[in-house]
């Protein structure tokens, strides 16, 4: 058990380091001179050089990489070129949008996917099952951003119930802010919920076929009790795997959805920073998103062990 945890932890750290190297190297070749962009086109070359020096972009790559990692470790994320503001002050408010959005979408997804999946499994091969499975088949074929556009079309353009985009900020009050997140969260949850419903149904049906469930049913245990006592726990492993995958997908998909709904979240920050050649921000924000995904995957790994201790003995 201890060895397993250590192995996983080592893998976790190695992935983070590898991710940071990839992010750094990729951005290293990003064309466009940050100092020039900041100063505008007419700035004399000398001024640009002076600013480049001040920003530290003229140091050798290794020194910059180590400086960056050191800064992240000590909580100093550097200063945005474009806004001349500490990156932390840019990232914090964008996270205050992206994280609640992902959480809301994840909640809706879980409720929707588990409900439909369990329902379909309980109506196996009957009409309810077929309807749910057909709808979910369509659901997984939908591009999330198109679902977002359709929701805008229906709820903002046609009905005018919810905003078509934009975010008033949490300072505008809880409900106005939440209202702005509903459609994006639903767009994310509809597609992911379809995936989860299929996985849940399949996982439950698989376990139902196992001998010990059949035995329990043969012994006179009611199907409901069998479901609660045996099936759910055993079906949890594939479901948790998919939930973990979905959480990381949702974090990343917020980039696209924020674009659909013009929400100033982390994805918006990244795309903007790329356009501005604000490399410090791109680097930190991308790394943050990558780190969140890696953490989610790590936690899912640990959860497996909690659910099924046998896993720690199996080969990965």
């Amino acid at each position: 058990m201890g060895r397993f945890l250590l192995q996983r932890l080592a893998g976790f750290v190695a992935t983070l380091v590898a991710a940071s190297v990839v992010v750094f190297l990729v951005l290293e070749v990003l064309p466009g001179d940050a100092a020039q962009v900041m100063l505008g086109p007419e700035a004399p070359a000398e001024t640009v050089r002076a600013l480049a020096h001040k920003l530290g972009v003229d140091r050798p790559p290794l020194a910059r990489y180590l400086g960056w990692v050191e800064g992240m470790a000590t909580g100093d994320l550097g200063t945005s070129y474009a806004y001349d503001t500490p990156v932390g002050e840019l990232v914090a408010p964008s996270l205050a949008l992206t994280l609640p959005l992902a959480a809301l979408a994840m909640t809706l997804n879980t409720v929707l996917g588990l409900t439909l999946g369990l329902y379909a499994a309980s109506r196996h091969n009957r009409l309810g099952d077929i309807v749910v499975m057909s709808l979910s088949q369509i659901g997984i074929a939908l591009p999330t951003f198109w679902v977002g556009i359709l929701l805008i079309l229906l709820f903002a353009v046609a009905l005018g119930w919810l905003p078509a985009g934009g975010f008033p900020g949490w300072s505008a009050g809880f409900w106005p802010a939440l209202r702005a997140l509903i459609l994006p969260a639903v767009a994310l949850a509809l597609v992911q919920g379809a995936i989860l419903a299929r996985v849940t149904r399949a996982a439950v049906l698989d376990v139902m076929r196992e001998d010990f469930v059949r035995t329990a049913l043969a012994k006179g245990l009611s199907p409901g009790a069998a479901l609660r006592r045996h099936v759910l726990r055993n079906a949890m492993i594939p479901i948790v795997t998919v939930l973990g995958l979905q959480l990381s997908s949702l974090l990343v998909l917020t980039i696209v959805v924020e674009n659909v709904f013009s929400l100033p979240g982390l994805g918006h920050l990244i795309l903007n920073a790329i356009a501005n050649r604000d490399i410090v921000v791109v680097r930190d924000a991308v790394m943050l998103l990558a780190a969140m995904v890696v953490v989610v995957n790590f936690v899912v790994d640990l959860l497996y062990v909690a659910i099924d201790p046998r896993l720690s003995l199996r080969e990965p």
Partner: protein
Amino acid sequence: MSLSARAAGNRSFAVGGLLTLALLATAALSLVWTPLSPYLIDVPQKLQLPSARHWFGTDSLGRDVFSMLMVGAQNSILVGVIAVSVGLLLGTALGVLAAERRGWVEEAVMRLADFTFAFPAILLAIMFTAVLGAGIVNSIIAIGIFNVPIFARVARGSAKAIWQRDFVMAARAAGRNRLGITLVHILPNILSVLSVQVTIQFANAILWEAALSYLGLGTQPPQPSWGRMLNDAQAQLFQAPWLALFPGFAIMLAVLGLNLLGDGLRDLLDPRGTRRAIAAPPARR
């Protein structure tokens, strides 16, 4: 029951096959014929409702939406074919190699695959296109890269199972070298599993390309692409809401067809249903 008889009886396979055929036929037809040129700009005719002349109406520059959709199918197929081929060839090579060599080679391949999985794919694609510039070639490369670990995992898993089979053991006992066994016995036997994965990844590639084009990072105008058309349509959502419907349906039908085809193939090639329920959830896009 023969395979073809079962294929006809498998509803997923039949519907999926028909939709996929329709996609291919549309793309093929658009090479030689479209109702109007998808590049023909006719500003006075912009944002027209569907009519006899413009079956799906016109966009903000007066171009014929139906013709653009037809040519957009070419674009999706082009991206899908190349990106999936890259993933299939490289990934299968790596996966089969890992299964054959075991030891550190296998470890390295799997770690690399793990790492790519752990890294948010669309994010790297965005960084990638930001560095190299937006364009169809770069989005193909980005999508192709993310197919490599997927195929590597599937190929390794199935190849390892085949290595345990009696006829492979017999071949080894007979002194065949490992490369020969891989080519003669392993590869042909994992083809069916790979073909299922190919259809699913093809569907995912279409979704990816649409997302990247929607973000303005993929296919560049005037080449029509479904994602880009949706981006343009969103700007006209209040004046011409119908513009946002057609490209989305096109993507949905193409992806639905390929997904169904994949499901059908899996059932046909593995009729006893011995597959694990969770082979590869299409959660990543």
